[in-house]
């Protein structure tokens, strides 16, 4: 049973996270993603972070279901091979700095001449034009620029903080994946190919906007002030750990008062309705803090579950795979990687009941599928050998 994107072929020149995570979603959903990497080290993320068998864990999660080809695109024959690949592809994706793809001869106009209905995807850090457009970008740069770091400021000290994961890269990738699929859908209905462009800065600000920027959404006077989200978005300390608890709806708050054994809270005017609870979230959080230290996490969970109050223990990372709901969802899968050994990874998140998304191949070694791909293109063995001898094929 093929996945929903079966038959779609992607030539993927992206590297690191913002592009590869997007093409990984497509690959999981059945697309044939050909990852074209530069000679030498290939995609830099192969070398970053926890590794085994010469494969970083981040790389193995972000590049499963893909095939790898190493081409020296600085050589005319290397470029010619790439053009042959694109001629049979539906999507081409790159996340070089703006201008670089054009210089390399793989800009949008050049490749559209090879495949008129190509969906060409450009992911940039800051945008194609503008004052920062040619600068180098990393996630932390975007976190700072986009307001992410400001929104993470410690409420007591006001010192900004970064989110401790590469959220800007990942948000961009998920936006890109949907945008690529939308462009393919439009093409299916007769719109032809097109150039799809997105910037990490834009994706991150848009990601932040709904809640973080609520006080800056309505311009001019007359809007009620927002509640501080700090009280709502905080963690409670228990006798033996941490958990989150909150009540927004009336029934939830009634249940909370019963679970805490604090019936008098139900009469407190500040928390009388949803708006009030959100407005006085800090105060409610402080009250909760007084109470929750007296019992263990497990004890609170039992009481809160019985009263149907939204809550959860803070799962530690090493115990994530043991959570009973995570197990029930069969989310985390253990499999063998031929070089890296046994690993754990999430299955594709969205489940399709007719066209399932499956894990078909492990993340590739550098250039693992070079010969296979060139044979598919119809190149004779002698030419493939020659390209390899000349280091045009890695």
């Amino acid at each position, binding site marked *: *049973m*093929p996945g929903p994107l*079966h*038959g779609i072929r992607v030539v993927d020149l992206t590297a690191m996270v913002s592009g590869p995570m997007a093409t990984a979603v497509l690959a999981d959903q059945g697309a044939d993603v050909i990852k074209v990497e530069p000679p030498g080290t290939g995609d830099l993320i192969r070398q970053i972070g926890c590794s085994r068998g010469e494969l970083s864990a981040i790389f193995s999660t972000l590049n499963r279901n893909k095939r790898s080809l190493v081409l020296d695109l600085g050589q005319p024959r290397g470029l010619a091979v790439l053009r042959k690949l694109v001629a049979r592809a539906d999507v081409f994706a790159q996340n070089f700095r703006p201008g670089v793809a054009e210089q390399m001869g793989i800009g949008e106009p050049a490749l559209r001449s090879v495949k008129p209905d190509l969906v060409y995807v450009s992911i940039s850090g800051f945008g194609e034009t503008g004052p920062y457009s040619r600068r180098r970008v990393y996630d932390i740069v975007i976190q700072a620029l986009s307001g992410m770091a400001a929104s993470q400021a410690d409420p007591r000290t006001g010192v900004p903080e970064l989110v401790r994961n590469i959220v800007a890269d990942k948000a961009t990738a998920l936006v890109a994946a949907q945008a690529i699929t939308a462009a393919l859908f439009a093409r299916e209905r007769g719109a032809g190919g097109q150039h799809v462009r997105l910037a990490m800065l834009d994706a991150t600000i848009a990601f932040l906007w709904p809640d973080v920027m609520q006080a800056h959404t309505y311009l001019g006077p007359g809007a009620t002030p927002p509640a501080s989200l700090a009280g709502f978005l905080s963690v409670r300390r228990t006798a033996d750990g941490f958990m989150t608890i909150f009540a927004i709806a009336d029934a939830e708050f009634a249940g909370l008062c019963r679970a805490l054994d604090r019936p008098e809270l139900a009469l407190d005017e500040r928390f009388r309705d949803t708006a009030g609870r959100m407005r006085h979230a800090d105060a409610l959080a402080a009250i909760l803090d007084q109470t929750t230290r007296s019992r263990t996490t497990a004890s609170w969970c039992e009481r809160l579950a019985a009263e149907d109050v939204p809550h959860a223990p803070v799962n530690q990372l090493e115990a994530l795979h043991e959570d009973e709901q995570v197990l029930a*969802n*069969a989310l985390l899968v253990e499999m063998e990687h031929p070089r890296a050994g046994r690993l754990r990874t999430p299955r594709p998140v969205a*489940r399709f*009941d*007719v066209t399932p998304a499956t894990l078909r191949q492990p993340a590739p070694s550098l250039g693992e599928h070079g010969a296979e791909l060139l044979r598919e293109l119809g190149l004779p063995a002698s030419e493939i050998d020659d390209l390899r001898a000349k280091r045009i094929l890695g």
Partner: protein
Amino acid sequence: MSVPEGLFQGLKILELGAGAAGPVATRYFADQGATVVRVESGVRPDFLRLLHFRPGDPHGLNGGPMFVLMNPNKLSVAVNLSKPEGIEVALRLVGWADVVSENFSPRAMAKWGLEYQRLRELKPGLIMVSSCLFGQTGPQRMYPGFGGQGSAIAGFNHLAGWPDREAVGPSGTITDSLSPRYVALLIAAALFHRERTGEGQYIDVSQIETGVYSLSEAIVRASARGEVMTRRGNHAEDAAPHAIYPCAGPDRWIAIAVFSDEEWRRLCEALGAPGLARDPRFARAADRLVHEEALDAALVERTRALEPDALMHRLQAAGVEAGVVQTCADLLQDPQLAHRGHFVRLRHRHLGDLRFEHYGICFSESPRRLETPGPDLGEHNLRVLGSVGYDELEIRSLVEAGVLA
């Protein structure tokens, strides 16, 4: 050395209950030489005896075609179990039997004092099988449904039909044709066990559970990946074309199933459609699945004018799986079923010539046999009761007292 008189020659089975589920199971043994005695009630007769083509049929309880067709090779005694003398007759028959098979609702047998614990005292090596919708235990065991409800609860209905319409369920209440095979299997296995050890046993079969067990794949897929399987017409998950296509003639159809690219090429060739074979949308299996609507439309164009039987032969000769959708009329003429001796003509005293059926097993050493059609109610009172020690006088007085009724 063959056993020409039947695998179960000499075996004695006492059957209580009604409908299809129980009686179909004991037929496997009746057709192989066992003596199967049905204990029936004239007061509350098997409802299959009441299903007639025309209401007010003159043959009444003995003219129900479905009953007759379902119970060949069996003997019938009429016993009124609401009378203590009737229970005594039943107990005498249990003493005679090797196997007791019943498919009443739970508690019925116990209400009559015929539960296994009691019967085992009478006959220590007895094998007894109870089969009912939900089994002998559990909070919903007294649920009063028929086989149609059983199939629905077991999940078969949901899985058959078209995705945009109500569940239809495969024809025939699956639990009535499926669970009897399990009952037959269990009786045979219990007999085998007894041959080796001398031990009898009691077996509790829930028709719904045999259904759910059969659908293990659906349950495992739900548990392992949260997938709720549902109906999808005739399409397969990983093969195309895989559907039923219209042929020439009113309501004539052919099933075609292609499982490899090689078979696809052969199908195109056999249909005289080289263009189809060259169409890139259909070249490989995964592509055929993606473009299944167009694929089916293209094939309908080519099958709709063809005679189904000839088409089936042509495709099969070319190595392509194809089969005519056969009606009852077709089945009665089917040459393969004739070769298997599936249908046997027997004369019934009231309904005339009837085509009875065998089940699906041919034993090399023991040809299956159909000798007598379904019995009249109580037809064998004399013979059966005589063989367990009642004399004619006793039998007559039991009849007059309304015990044998």
